[in-house]
């Protein structure tokens, strides 16, 4: 740490420099993190880009049903570099979800949710839920056809709640249909939620720095020979990751900016014309498939639970179940590297998520209905049945003695 008198003077009164030094420089990090560990910091930098471009877009956007669509087009056409801001923002969301999904699957594969990282994991799930809400409301703002009809489908889900469903939907809309009050409140909340995400990310990092990073071996660091300081090793590695990531991200922004979008959203919202296929953005497709997977649940001819309510319960359940994962998987071994059976089912589960995404992109007819049901059944069976059974029956391979013993293979430790 700098010994400059001004730095010292401030630090004695508000220890920001000690804090930064401790958390970003000395922070002892396992020496064996692979490139899958880059996606946490990548998600962090995209969040910053999204907030930055979002604040600037907000200066030009008009949240009114009569002007929203045209104000977005004005940003695209007349605002200096407005097209860049908007494409950075709209593609940034897709990149955010890609980074977070990879981050999440990395956590699943290497058992990063296990003790003592349960709360760290739970904070991550809360971030995911907040991201989904934010992305959904943001997609409504350009007030195109998919904005309007996507909002109609999703808000109508709440009407499935017994007894008070209709009232809740009207309360959400601020009226008897989606309209200007809906748009303005979504805009207000779309501006608010990213800061909530930011706050939870902070808690996520506090928890991380308390329990320390997991690593590909899934064993705890036993001493200084197993760790390296965050700076310069992981700062250098993270910045290289940013470089590669931005090449991909900006490749889309400059050369295929509408790749992730739906053409229908370039048609202004029209409450009188329903698009032939209402599909959500790609990152919601697996959940959309789960929502539409279940039929009415009948007991002796009475509809006990409507398909809609069951679908809504399963859709929210598919994320909420992640909160319980640290206890469903009670195997003491974290990393899949030492869990031969868990590893195979992990990849089947990954394929199942892709399958559900594909089903979600197609109309719920014939073959896709069956596929959606199989995929949904497997999704839940994986967490509720398969993972506990594996934890009980699987015989894990022997764990290495320590990180340094495994990584350095008996060689002398580094000159750290």
């Amino acid at each position, binding site marked *: 740490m700098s010994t400059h008198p001004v730095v010292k003077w401030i630090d004695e009164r508000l220890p920001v420099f000690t804090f930064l030094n401790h958390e970003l420089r000395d922070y002892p990090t396992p020496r064996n993190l692979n490139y899958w560990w880059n996606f946490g910091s990548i998600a962090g930098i995209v969040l910053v880009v999204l907030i930055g471009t979002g604040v600037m877009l907000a200066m030009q956007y008009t949240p009114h049903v009569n002007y929203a669509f045209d104000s977005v087009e004005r940003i695209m056409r007349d605002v200096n570099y407005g097209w860049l801001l908007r494409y950075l923002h709209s593609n940034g969301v897709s990149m955010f979800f890609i980074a977070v999904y990879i981050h999440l699957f990395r956590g699943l594969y290497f058992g990063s949710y296990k003790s003592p990282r349960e709360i760290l994991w739970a904070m991550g799930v809360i971030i995911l839920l907040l991201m989904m809400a934010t992305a959904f409301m943001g997609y409504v703002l350009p007030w195109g056809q998919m904005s309007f009809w996507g909002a109609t489908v999703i808000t109508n889900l709440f009407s499935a709640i017994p007894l008070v469903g209709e009232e809740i939907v009207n309360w959400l809309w601020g009226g008897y249909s989606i309209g200007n009050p809906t748009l303005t409140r979504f805009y207000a909340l779309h501006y608010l939620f990213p800061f909530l995400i930011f706050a939870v990310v902070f808690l996520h990092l506090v928890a991380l720095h308390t329990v320390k990073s997991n690593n590909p071996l899934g064993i705890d660091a036993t001493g200084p020979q197993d760790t390296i300081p965050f700076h310069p090793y992981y700062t250098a590695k993270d910045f290289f990751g940013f470089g590669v990531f931005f090449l991909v991200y900006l490749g889309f922004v*400059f050369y295929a900016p509408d790749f992730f979008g739906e053409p229908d959203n370039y048609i202004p919202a029209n409450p009188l014309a329903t698009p032939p296929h209402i599909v959500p953005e790609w990152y919601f497709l697996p959940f959309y498939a789960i929502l539409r997977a279940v039929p009415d649940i009948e007991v002796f001819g009475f509809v006990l639970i409507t398909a809609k309510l069951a679908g809504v319960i399963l859709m929210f359940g598919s994320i909420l179940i992640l909160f319980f994962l640290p206890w469903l998987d009670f195997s003491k071994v974290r990393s899949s590297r030492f869990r031969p059976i868990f590893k195979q089912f992990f990849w089947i589960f990954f394929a199942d998520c892709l399958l559900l995404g594909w089903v979600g992109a197609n109309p719920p007819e014939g073959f896709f209905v069956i596929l959606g049901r199989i995929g949904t059944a497997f999704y839940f069976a994986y967490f509720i049945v398969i993972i506990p059974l594996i934890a009980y029956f699987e015989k894990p391979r022997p764990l290495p003695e320590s990180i340094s013993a495994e990584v350095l293979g008996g060689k002398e430790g580094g000159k750290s």
Partner: protein
Amino acid sequence: MRVTPTLVSGLIAGLFLLSSVTPSPAAAAEMPEIEKRDWSFDGIFGSFDRTAQQRGYQVYNELCSGCHGLRLLTYRNLAALGYDEDDIKAFAAEYEVTDGPDEEGEMYQREALPSDHFVSPFANTNAARAANNGALPPDLSLIVKARKNGADYIYALLTGYGDTPDGRELPDGMYYNAAFPGHQIAMPQPLDDDAVEYADGTPATVNQMASDLTTFLAWTASPEMEARKLLGLKVMLFLLVFTAMLAAIKRKVWSRLH
């Protein structure tokens, strides 16, 4: 309960097989296959062919603008096609806009200025429907971005008119189009050979006009495209070099550990 890796790879292979299953014939009829064409504005270095854009604007002006608006454009935007200020003033002056109120509080009509938005052919959607047998001619500003397959679809639609196949009945006021979803479109064939006389002497075939008009409409949908690709090139080249440097730094820093 040992599961072999073949099971996993089999499952993944199965997924790929499933994904290659073609949609049902009914769905295929709804969504016709659109042929991919080469456009001047394709690719990393693509830019709009100026002469095609100008011809396309002429086609729009003479054949389309009677029913279809371009409300998101202003006349001054035409400078991007290579027209000078006087040309643009002249284009704008052909239209009248309502302005005001004046000092007496009255609204008045005046000639459109380069800063005005393109004047739409109908005052509102009801007027548009009333004049078009109940059908609503869409505004074309974003049409290329608002349709699947974009420019290829617009070209296919403009050139997709033909005789109704045997055994198919179309209602009155509907026309057969090979590219339109459902093949039944309310717009009569908009382009006929030599319907315009190109200022540059290019023969005005249907295919030529369709191609020019599509190029023009690709520009109206993405007027930022050339600036975007140019900036993108600079940014990507910089990032490539910068990322290579970051990779070198990473290797150097980590070499201390091994």
